[in-house]
């Protein structure tokens, strides 16, 4: 990382792009788990 303006995400708690990408993957995984639980609870 060169520390240039494009390397700064500007997001609180997610300072590197790598962290942003992991957060996106975590959000997707959370949705998949939520959908499975919804089906299990009411299906």
């Amino acid at each position: 990382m060169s520390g240039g303006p494009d390397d700064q995400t500007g997001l609180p708690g997610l300072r590197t792009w790598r962290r942003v990408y992991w957060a996106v993957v975590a959000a997707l995984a959370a949705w998949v788990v939520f959908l499975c639980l919804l089906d299990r609870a009411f299906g």
Partner: protein
Amino acid sequence: MNAADYLVLVGILLGIALYATWNTRRQDSLRSYLKGSENTHWFTIGLSVMATQASAITFLSTPGQGYQDGLGFVQNYFGMPLALIVVAAFFLPIFRKLNVYTAYEFLGSRFDSKTRLLAAGFFLLQRGLGAGLTIYAPAIVLSSVMGWRLDATIVCSGLVVVLYTVSGGCEAVNLTQKYQVGVIFAGMAAAFVIVIRSLPAGLTLSDSLAVAGGFHRLGGVDFSPDPARRYTFWSGTLGGFFLALAYFGTDQSQVQRYLSGGSLRGSRLGLMFNAVFKVPMQFFILLLGVFLFVFYQFERPPLFFNRAQWQQGVAHDSSGQLRALEAGFDSIEDRKAAEVKAWLAARRAGDAAGAEAARSAAEKSQAAAEEIHARAFKALSSRRPGVSANENDYVFVDFILDHLPHGLIGLLVAAFFAAALSSKAGELNALGSTTTVDLYRHIVRRGADDSHYVTASRWFTAFWGLVAIGFALFAHLAENLIQATNILGSVLYGAPLGVFLVAFFIRRIRGTAVFWGALGAQALVFVLYFRGLPVSYLWYNVIGAAACVGLSGAIQAVRGGEAAAA
């Protein structure tokens, strides 16, 4: 629709179009005409990416899909966040570094002119034909239920989008899309609230979800490995990943959206915004359809949601067969409503056996109602050839017209048109840019000044707009043309994606190898498609991309010495 609805509809659509046209009227730099303002905020980029992807059919048909099949369709979007990460991490920095106007320009510098033209040609063929359907598909639904003339609906909506896209270019497209997305979300949120409020008094959220789950409408994730199943976790994640990678990484209508603005950071944040919010957005649109399904367990639904089509059939039915089927359907629906109420009463009383018995009876009634629907469709289509079997398009709009107050009906119809215009504008903008940059400036006229290319781009955008309107006007006369366009849309993404994957990740493969590899891969996909390979359409992108990479590598291996010399 009454005068208030028309006022809301016309006011919103024309207001946004005229505002954008006025604010972006002075465009004489090619950079701002094709890429928009340097100061475009990442949120605007994110909304623009979202608006280009989500067409009117997304908002018209997806609730109907939730009504018919439940939440399963959401799986198709599981691969998209992962693809957007790849685009943001690998594709975007190179596009930005080379400062290209189109994705295909990059192929010219990485490979050669013929590979650039091949990829641009794939795009123009696919999007150029598909652009007409973006207008036609919502126009045929809305004109049918509103009683409007189809040709007038197509021409009016088409000319509005051509007006501001030609006038203001990328900046106008970004500006209008921002407000159009606002209208879409406001309309969908209002509809969601009204659907929930229309459910019977005393019905809790838990009851509603139990009814939806009892009729198998909550199955959002299917881990079956069967490739012939339409929506599974695997096809959605892997097939959806390749489809989204092709669409966001290689389709100029998206590349142009996120290359607008002045910074890599803004483009990345715009893409990550979509990576986070696309799956929830599709979930809520499908959930709206699921709640519509619950609503129609307590209120009798029509046998056909496309009521205009049904009434025309009934008017020409001298035998009375259609009316008899309708009476049978109504009777089953009334019985089912009583069974669902008994089921919920037993569930609340803690009587598990009674609840299961009532649920099982309601499920059988549902199957009987679906069988009558199938018989009614057969009877209707035998009297009126060309009847649409796709009820998904009409479920939501029928509810809107029957249950929303005036003013809100206008807002929802404006939302559907806003979605049509926003995706259409992104496509036209990209078609005009690609024709200007990859064909006209690259082959016909090199070295002219900016104002010349801006003028050329305006003419090409107008040309593609008129092609789209013309296609939409004549589409209903040629069902085969619509079918051919849909096929091209499904199977023409894999090979171009393979070209870009080779360009980014396999440095040793050169232009000639990837050019012939792409043509071979596309031929293979066509052969597999027309031989009826029993797989979901999403897998064709995986096959096309893998075949392109494999064939390119093999050709390069054969040509190894020659390439090294080059």
